[in-house]
């Protein structure tokens, strides 16, 4: 196997790519208009007809979809085919009220897995490799995506799923895994565990890792590369568009090639919705050009990044996106779970607290920590320490139920949470991820 999984398309000229995109968008908009009533209404409201979309440039005329639309249309409102044509669902990590369920036909699964296969080959994978997939399997797209990609490449696939580090290490050493797929924080944890057991980086047979599903820094890349003796590649994706493999890093490690024959990317001004030129930071918007069952058009990812069409030394011609530089909404990703400050506010009000709080996120030993400072009210106060401590515990329990992860709650005196310009600073993220 060569340098590319699908050389012809991955190295196609700009003209060829645009030609493919032009053909696919016309067909896709018609497919969506005919089959997805929810989006048809949005188009009608905007006064756009399928005939108005003649080339990929006309995509600007289409309305956006947001996470709120996905919530409104849950579960079947954005389905583009009959259910009998679907073969799979996947779902997001599922914080309350924000769950996304995406549907796939066999065609959709195949194109997603091909995208993952491109990523594996770009990381040096061939049918002689042993690919250890320790992303979670199940509703989460990480495990199934890389598993399918590895099959398409023809590599020996170890469907480990996440956790049980002892077993991960045993299989890694005994079956001589050569490519590791997991979250970057888990890769760092495996590296530490190997070191604790007395293994040196050269003792394993790994050559590369494909890491994604959470933000990570260049420093973390270097630490993982050193700790495991590998090259560490970034991969990006989201359940709404398919899963991992929407874009992936090549040997140059200077951004992720977007699979432009399937996913059309735009960068917009998050406030005005105006499309921005390449090189400017804005919100990433994706259009699925040929997915059948869950064909989202102009889906706003909330990820802020930059597109670059600079010639890449790897020979791939597809546009590259930077690592996301932050988010245009206030969503936090903590230990892989999506957390919205509004959820915390809901819990506080339900439990009888004021909505004055501050979230402090940090990363210690490669694990995210979450602390919430909450202002105590006179009604909650008691002269007995145990009673106040019980209130703190009860609030932690309510937070864990709502968020899916357990924060540490700290009760503070009223009016002590820092406010700037009259408004509380809600989130302090000390992780330095961007």
């Amino acid at each position, binding site marked *: 196997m060569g340098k590319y999984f699908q050389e012809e398309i991955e190295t196609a000229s700009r003209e060829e790519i645009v030609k493919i995109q032009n053909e696919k968008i016309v067909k896709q908009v018609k497919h969506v208009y005919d089959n997805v009533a929810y989006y048809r209404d949005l188009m009608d409201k905007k006064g756009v007809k399928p005939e108005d979309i003649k080339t990929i440039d006309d995509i600007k005329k289409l309305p956006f979809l947001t996470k709120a639309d996905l919530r409104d249309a849950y579960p079947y409102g954005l389905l583009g085919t009959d259910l009998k044509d679907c073969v799979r669902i996947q779902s997001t990590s599922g914080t309350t009220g924000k769950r996304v369920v995406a549907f796939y036909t066999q065609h959709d699964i195949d194109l997603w897995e091909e995208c993952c296969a491109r990523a594996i080959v770009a990381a040096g994978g061939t049918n002689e490799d042993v690919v250890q997939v320790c992303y979670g399997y199940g509703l989460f797209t990480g495990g199934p995506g890389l598993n399918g990609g590895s099959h398409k490449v023809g590599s020996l696939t170890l469907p480990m799923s996440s956790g049980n580090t002892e077993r991960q290490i045993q299989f890694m050493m005994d079956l001589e895994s050569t490519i590791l797929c997991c979250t970057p924080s888990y890769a760092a944890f495996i590296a530490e565990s190997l070191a604790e057991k007395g293994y040196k980086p050269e003792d394993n047979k790994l050559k590369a890792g494909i890491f994604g599903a959470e933000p990570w820094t260049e420093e973390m890349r270097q630490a993982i590369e050193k700790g495991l003796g590998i090259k560490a590649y970034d991969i990006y994706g989201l359940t709404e568009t398919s899963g991992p493999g929407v874009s992936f890093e090549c040997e140059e490690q200077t951004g992720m090639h977007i699979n432009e024959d399937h996913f059309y990317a735009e960068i917009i001004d998050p406030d005005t919705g105006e499309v921005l030129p390449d090189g400017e930071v804005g919100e990433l918007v994706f259009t699925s050009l040929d997915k059948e069952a869950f064909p989202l058009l102009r889906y706003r990812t909330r990820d802020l990044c930059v597109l670059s069409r600079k010639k890449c030394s790897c020979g791939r011609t597809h546009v590259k996106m930077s690592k996301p530089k932050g988010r245009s909404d206030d969503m936090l990703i903590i230990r892989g779970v999506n957390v919205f400050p509004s959820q915390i506010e809901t819990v506080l009000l339900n439990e009888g607290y004021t909505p004055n709080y501050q979230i402090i996120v940090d990363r210690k030993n490669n694990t995210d920590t979450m602390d919430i400072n909450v202002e*105590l*009210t*006179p009604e909650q*106060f*008691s*002269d*007995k*320490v145990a009673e*106040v*401590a019980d209130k*703190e515990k009860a609030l932690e329990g309510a937070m864990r139920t709502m968020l899916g992860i357990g924060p540490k709650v*700290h*009760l*503070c*005196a*009223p*009016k*002590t949470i820092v406010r700037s310009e009259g408004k509380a600073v809600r989130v302090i993220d000390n992780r330095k991820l961007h």
Partner: protein
Amino acid sequence: MAIKQVSVFVENKKGKLVEVIEKLAKANINIQAMSIADSKDFGILRLIVSDNDKAVALLEEDTIVKTTDVIAVKMDDIEGALYKVLQTLDKADINVDYSYAFTVHKELDAYVVFRVDNIADAEKILADNGFTLLNNI
């Protein structure tokens, strides 16, 4: 008679305790007894002061305070004195939530403050057994 104790929420951070005490000092409020119960994040400062209402009004500006009725029992400053008081309460099935002791220098007497679950019963039983309770300090 029960006496007033003011409980003050204090964050477990450097400089927080001195802020509270400074306010009282500047307002010429005398602290007759105090104790602190703390957890990892916060402490509860319990005070018996010369002017409870004034202290509450002052401290409420910055934090949360609460007034609680407690009883203060005069004890002989001899071995076994505390045992006698506690034994009396225990026999009457009164639960002590917390307690702390102080002395009044002029008189060389010892006092113990009790927060109990049934203050009326506790007062009666202690008085019946010949203990002296403080009405005010």
